[in-house]
């Protein structure tokens, strides 16, 4: 672990005032502290933001507001969330372990780093950790790696389940820095690796996530999150599907679909959504729509199965949510 300065802020203004290039905000610490111990991250200043008043979960005409410092377990159990957006609660409960969910914040969850084992081991190359050093995953152990949004520089998956569910719902993050506040849709927030996998999002230096806004979507009451993994708990997704469906009788009138575990960023699937719209809820129609999930997929030696798995995850999630088999 590299040496660092520590400061604790009590207001957002104070926090962003202390931040700059090389600083890191500390919330639950469940990613940051791990990676600092591994020397993967080495911030010069750690700004403890746990005392900031950003834990509220409220609903108004703009939608559901989730404070960036709300803990995963609290949000998962919040009745505004469980009633209006079951997909969010399910995604949170499928994440990590109860102990981690009690500590980890919503803002931190959205910024957690990939679980790629090359990224986390400083004895090997990694373009995300050490730009230009190379990507051993391209020819190495890549069963867990992404098939969508990859480049020859990086194929690491984005690990957050919550971000997948929020992406399906068209959510935004609220950001604050010394130069003011702004709101960015998650679809614009995350950045595919390209040739600069070290750049993962559009946050500016020192900018802080203060909250998440989920716009109203009345039919998101009919939503779910399906996570497929080798182990039934405490593991990251091989593939996941966040879905919300509006029905009229047996006809799908609108759908939201995003997938995780297969993309370098949370991956919304407008083509699948469009293919479902207006269709009768049948497995055959789900299958046809799911086939559009993998357009442009690029596979590596060990992860080709994800092309099939992600489609099956979508079909299964729709089947289970809509009671169609």
């Amino acid at each position, binding site marked *: 672990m590299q040496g660092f300065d520590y400061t604790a802020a009590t207001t957002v203004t104070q926090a962003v005032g202390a931040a700059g290039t090389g600083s890191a905000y500390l919330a639950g610490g469940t990613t940051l502290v791990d990676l600092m111990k591994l020397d993967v991250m080495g911030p010069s200043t750690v700004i403890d933001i746990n005392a900031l008043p950003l834990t509220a979960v409220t609903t108004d005409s703009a939608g559901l507001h989730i404070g960036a410092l709300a803990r995963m377990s609290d949000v998962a159990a919040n009745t505004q969330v469980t009633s209006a957006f079951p997909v969010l609660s399910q995604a949170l409960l499928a994440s990590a372990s109860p102990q981690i969910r009690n500590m980890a914040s919503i803002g931190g969850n959205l910024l957690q780093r990939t679980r790629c*084992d090359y990224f986390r081991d400083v004895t*090997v190359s990694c373009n995300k950790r050490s730009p230009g050093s190379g990507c051993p995953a391209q020819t190495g*152990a890549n069963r867990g790696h992404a098939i969508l949004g990859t480049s020859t520089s990086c194929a690491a998956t984005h690990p957050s389940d919550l971000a997948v569910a929020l992406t399906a719902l068209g959510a935004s993050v609220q950001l604050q820095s010394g130069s003011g506040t702004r709101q960015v849709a998650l679809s614009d927030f995350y950045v595919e690796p390209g040739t600069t996998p070290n750049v993962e999002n559009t946050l500016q230096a020192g900018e802080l996530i203060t909250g998440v806004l989920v716009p109203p979507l009345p039919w998101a009451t009919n939503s779910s999150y399906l996570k497929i993994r080798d182990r039934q708990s405490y593991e990251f997704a091989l*593939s996941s599907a966040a879905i919300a469906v509006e029905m009229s009788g047996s006809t799908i009138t609108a759908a939201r679909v995003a997938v995780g575990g297969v993309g370098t960023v949370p991956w919304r699937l407008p083509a699948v959504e469009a293919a479902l719209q207006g269709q009768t809820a049948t497995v055959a129609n789900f299958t046809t729509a799911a086939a559009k999930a993998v357009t442009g997929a690029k596979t590596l030696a060990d992860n080709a*199965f994800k092309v099939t*798995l992600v489609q099956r995850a979508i079909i299964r999630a729709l*089947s289970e949510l809509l009671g169609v*088999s």
Partner: protein
Amino acid sequence: MSTSPIGSSTSRVDGVLKVTGGAKYAADNMLTNMAYGYLVTSTVGKGTISAMTTSGALASPGVLAVYTPFNPLKLYAYGGDENDEFTPPLQDKNVRYRGQVIGMVVAETFEQARDAAALVTATYSTQTPVTAMAKSASGSGTVSEVYNTSIVHHHAMEPHATVASWSGTHLTIYTATQGTPLVVSRLSHALGVSSANIHVVNPYVGGAFGGKWGNWAHTPLTAAAAQALGRPVKTVLTREQVFTVVGHRPNTSQTVSLTANSSGTISALKHIATVSKSNSSNFTENPASVSKSTYAAGSISTAQTPVSMDIPATTIMRAPGEANGSFALESAIDELAVALNMDPLALRQKNYAKTVPGGSTPWSSKHLAECYTTGAGAFGWSQRSAKPGQVTNGDWLVGLGMATAAYPAGRSASTLMVRLQNDGTAVVSGTGSDAGTGQATVFAILGAAALGIPVAQVSAELGDSTLPTAANAGGSGSTSSNGTAVNVAAQAAISALIQLAISNTSSPFHGKSASSVTYKNGNLTSGSTTISFGALLTKINVAGVQATGTSAKNTTSGYGFMSFGAIFCEVQVNKWTAEPRVTRLLAVMDAGTIVDAKTARSQIMGGMIMGIGQALLEGTILESDGRFANANLASYLVPVNADLPHIDVTFLNYPDTILNPIGMRGIGELGIVGAAGAVANAIYNATGKRVRDLPITLDKLL
């Protein structure tokens, strides 16, 4: 005490201490003026170290010393083999595998040592490591297939840790081990110190599974550093270091060929195994051995070929050989049943080994046939669809599978001490190790049975090299060996008590003949006088009376000694996403007299759960440069509670009195043998897909 506690369901005697943090494990020892060691490991797979830079580390805050092959702590050859490495660390500049210990930093705090260790750099002259595993050649028969298993690791919950402290020429060392005598012998050689000057203390072990039989590099290094620095040193391995500094179960490629007639009688069984073997250790696994004793066959031939590789040590792990071998054998039996259109249980019953295969040697005690029928009945085996892929539960395909468990039983020499105390309690003590097995509880139960007093009045002392030398915890031999010695020692203690009672002038029995005094249920009686041993000792003002007893190694020949069992498994595999989930698991075990039903059940469950891990989750990916690609517990998956169904364990409880008077056999390994095969066979029954490569992950079933 009219009812024997043997076979009762007794909670572990150290359970409260363990769950409240009161049990002191090796790393829990905090000594005055203690420094902290942190290991530096190699980042290439093979070669020699041409230079190491330690100036940054030495200048780092709190650093006391940096040891490397260029500035080593002197260690001598280990002498002999204990399933660990050939050579002690830092004595040469060769890199034999990636993750090998090439240095140790000692500092005032753990964090200072870790941070300084990150500043140590090495320059290597590298060679290409041998990391490719050979596949077993194909064979011929009614069925003949090749089965492959992965490198797997013990990963006890307690990582390896050593705390060493010298007083003059005398070393006291707290280190996680399956037997304190193993550490004494190893360190005596490595440090060049008389065994009499080494005191090993390790009363609690947080799991071992074979991984704490050998002594790994940190143990002699920590002892030597403590001596060199003149202050206590503690070294705890990180979880990542446990992957390479400690040995692992080798990967295997096995060809099993079975030739049978249409009624299922097997005329030939051939089991040929290729196993990886580290160039740093001597241990070679023998997976094919399981085929010599599980089924009758006209002819049985087995062989193994080690493949020397530049990888961390290969070592013993729970059922070494049998766990890998039984997966191949039990899968092949299932495949033969499919080929012959027979029920797989009926095929096993058809080839039942009534005597030790290959001759007429009888078994000391074998009730496997009852395991089969009892298990089949309780599990509902008759409901199994012979044709795979026929049973569904919603979108889940349901399958049933089974396998035979078999593991050798033995009895080695053990000496224990029993002490009777003036408060009416007794202590059973010896060097033996309770690595979470329940051995301490077994000591208490058997002590209580032998002395005729309640279990609550008997305590156990283990894990101290100054105690009488009991059997180490390995090879499922502890209870058979040490348990037998408890009785001998208890009888010796009773004799000593009677001698004291007739010789002490304050005793009511003073002057009587030994034969006139009888002991029963904690009381001495002569004529009309009866007094408890506690009251007697109090009356004569003696704190306690003790004696040792030795039970020799088993020398009875002419029998096959094994434990047996049948494992039944139900899996469900999702028809869309193909993840396999174990939904029911049942075992019926023929393992001799069960001393503690509760900890015995836990032992068998633990073995079966480790088998689920072997079957579905565990496997280290070895890269061509010798790096373990997934050497952390987020990427190397072990089962969690959510992966586990209720597990039903039944013991037949037939005493094996040819092995020892109480009839006890071992149960530490038995549960894992057959577990992976049962899971794989159930997956075939569910899906019609035969996966011959472990672990069986969903990508192999999509």
